[in-house]
């Protein structure tokens, strides 16, 4: 079970990112819990400056723009 945080103020791209994570995880058969983090304080604490940001199990892997689906697989499987 992996915990994925999506950091973003609720913009359209953040929603899409959350959906992508769920899709990729479902296809790979990985159990994930996707959490939306929308408050600025938590974003700052995680070191996110451009949104959407993604962290997997507490480790920041991406910030700014939609993630690449191929890379998303990599983050979820390692």
């Amino acid at each position, binding site marked *: 079970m992996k915990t994925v945080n999506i950091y973003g*103020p609720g913009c359209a791209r953040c929603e899409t990112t959350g959906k992508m994570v769920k*899709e990729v995880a479902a296809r790979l058969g990985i159990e994930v819990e996707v959490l939306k983090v929308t408050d600025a304080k938590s974003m*700052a604490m995680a*070191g996110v*400056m451009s949104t959407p940001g993604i962290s997997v199990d507490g480790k920041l892997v991406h*910030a*700014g*723009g939609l993630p690449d689906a191929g890379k998303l697989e990599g983050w979820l499987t390692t």
Partner: protein
Amino acid sequence: MTIETYDPAPPRGTPDWLWYLGVPTAAVALYLVYGQLIPFSEWVTSLFPVARDSHTGEAIAFFVYDVPKVLLLLTGIVFVTGVLRSWFSPEKTRAILAGKREIWGYPLASLLGVLTPFCSCSSVPLFIGFVSAGIPLGVTFSFLIAGPMVGPVGLGLLYGLVGWQIATLYLVFGFTIATVAGFVLGRMGLERHLQDWVRELNAGPVGDLPEEQLTLVDRLKIGAEQVREIVGKVWIWVLVGIGIGAAIHGYVPEAMMLQIMGGEAWWSVPVAVAVGVPMYTNAAGVIPIVEALLGKGAALGTTLAFMMSVIALSLPEMIILKQVLKLRLIAIFIAVVAGGILATGFLFNAIL
């Protein structure tokens, strides 16, 4: 272990050579179409049952010429900017600014504000990220002022619609205001007016992301994505702005414009700023109005002041910044930037 490759949607599978071929082809096509806009707009105008030199005829011609022109220019500028900006990121900018002596920080922050891709929706995490990395508050403000004020969209449209001289003046003065306003704000020692939680925040280690390796095609894709996103969002502002510009161009008498926005009326500069600050549109919407105002003889300083205050200071951005700045600091911020804009307006009206 092998990971099966995943193709989310067919359009993403566009082969690289198609990008290398398609982008130059699109550029040439845009250029050729651009050259045909005047005959096209005259032809469209002639279809209307009004005299070409009547008020309505003038307004229609302005509208049908400007709409395709602005949209074409916008597409080209946003694409090129998107590609160029793919070499920059807020993380890199922060690393550069955090290591600089303060005095060089201000102009550098203004410059990076223009080059770094960021949307106003992430200005709060960006603000905190900067301040917590030890970048002085004033330098952070220079960055945040320059970004929207001297954006490439505004500059490019100004260049296309009004001419390179005014675009250059705007660039120089927008850059100067961002640098000087940041410097002044930095000298005022305003840290105590940050929201309490921001001051107490001991931001942990900076998120250390491995730098993404992008190929040229990746960068072209970013440009195309930006076009889809930005042009898709601002076209309605463009239409409204050109509509207002067309009305001014066709119907407002020059004598009246000279009275209200001419160089003689000193009070017109503060009024232009006072009207511009609460107005919210983006550069793409306001520049067709600027074009029409200047065409009717409005003074350059007054018009520039209006344009700068519309673009640089906006209510939605202030509401976003309210999360990190106390009301008092927001008021000081607006006052300092508006002061710089006023000075610019007066200066141009005086020397031209």
